[in-house]
């Protein structure tokens, strides 16, 4: 049992990586990874909502009529997003300002509704928590990796530590860089996974 829970947590990194394999949650992946720290913060914010909504949904799922389950799930998710918004405004207002619009948009992040549909609705609360933790960590790692690459290329720094003086390749901090970096990372991921 413990082994199964452990594999639920680790599968998010490679086998069911939400970004590179399941291709979910593209908007925050592209928009908030302008630097490594931003990517990490966005990943953790998503992780928070994912774990809590997975637990809540796994507990209420047996009582929710089948016809209205999607709206109910969305309201549950939106509630946790609002909790997160209020917490962030209170304790880390700067982070909230940088991530901006993409915190409320966690509501429509397909990873969360996807996990609720595919896993939390059918499993116990502990398993669902592990599943949320695993997928959330996988998402966080992918976002951080994309952030690190974009920050190094675009700004010549690593987690804010500047090792190349002067400007980097600005395009990588701007919109085109996000698409290009994600595209090439996916190629590398495909190459490794297919072997």
């Amino acid at each position, binding site marked *: 049992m413990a082994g199964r829970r452990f594999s639920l947590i680790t599968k998010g990194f490679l086998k069911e990586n939400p970004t590179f394999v399941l291709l979910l949650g593209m*908007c925050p992946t*592209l*928009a908030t990874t302008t630097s490594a720290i931003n990517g990490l913060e966005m990943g953790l914010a998503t992780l928070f909502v994912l774990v809590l909504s997975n637990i809540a949904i796994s507990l209420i799922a047996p009582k929710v009529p089948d016809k209205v389950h999607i709206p109910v799930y969305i309201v549950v998710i*939106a509630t946790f997003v609002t909790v997160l918004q209020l917490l962030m405004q209170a304790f880390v207002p700067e982070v909230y300002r940088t991530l901006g619009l993409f915190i409320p948009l966690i509501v*429509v992040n*397909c990873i969360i509704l996807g996990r609720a549909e595919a896993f939390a609705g059918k499993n116990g609360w502990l398993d669902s928590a592990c599943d949320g933790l695993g997928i959330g960590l996988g998402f966080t790692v992918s976002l951080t990796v994309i952030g690190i690459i974009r920050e190094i290329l675009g700004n010549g720094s690593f987690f804010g530590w500047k090792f190349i003086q002067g400007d980097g390749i600005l395009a990588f901090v701007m919109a085109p860089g996000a*698409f290009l970096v994600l595209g090439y990372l996916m190629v590398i991921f495909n190459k490794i996974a297919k072997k």
Partner: protein
Amino acid sequence: MEYFLIIISAIFVNNIVLAQFLGICPFLGVSNKLSTATGMSLAVCFVITFATVVTYLLNQYLLVPFGLDFLQTIAFILVIAALVQTVEIVLKKVSPSLYQALGIFLPLITTNCAVLGVAITVVTKEFTFGSAAPHMLNLAESAVYAFATALGYGLAMVLFSGLREHLALCNVPKSFKGLPVALITVGIMAMAFLGFSGIV
């Protein structure tokens, strides 16, 4: 003049897909064929404009006066979900041919982050157009902004699906097949759209 600036800015300079990264999932998901891309763009256009007007009014006359702004996220997503459902029912009755054409795209729009994104942007962000001072948009400006943003979405979608139809015929290396090469194409498109920055 101001409306003109809003429209140019929303379509080209701050294109919702290529500069703001909203609505990427359907953008990548249904852009395989030009005809489906057009259908999706039309449906999104309709819903974004309608949803923005409704959520703007809801925010202005219900949430703000009662100090309930913190409920924005929940209230907006519910309104959008209900609205999409209503649009679906009305369209089915009034114009079955359009309903047939849009098909499965209508229900999918609820989870399109472009809709919620635009609705939240117009009630929280201050805009600066031309020489005017930064200000919140009023109802008419919000509606124009939402409509223009949706047009920008349609433009990006139609252009991209055209490219993708050609891409399908090309001999792409194996690990680039599918999404990776599509993303790189979008990256190059976004680079082209960067050329518009600075004109408004």
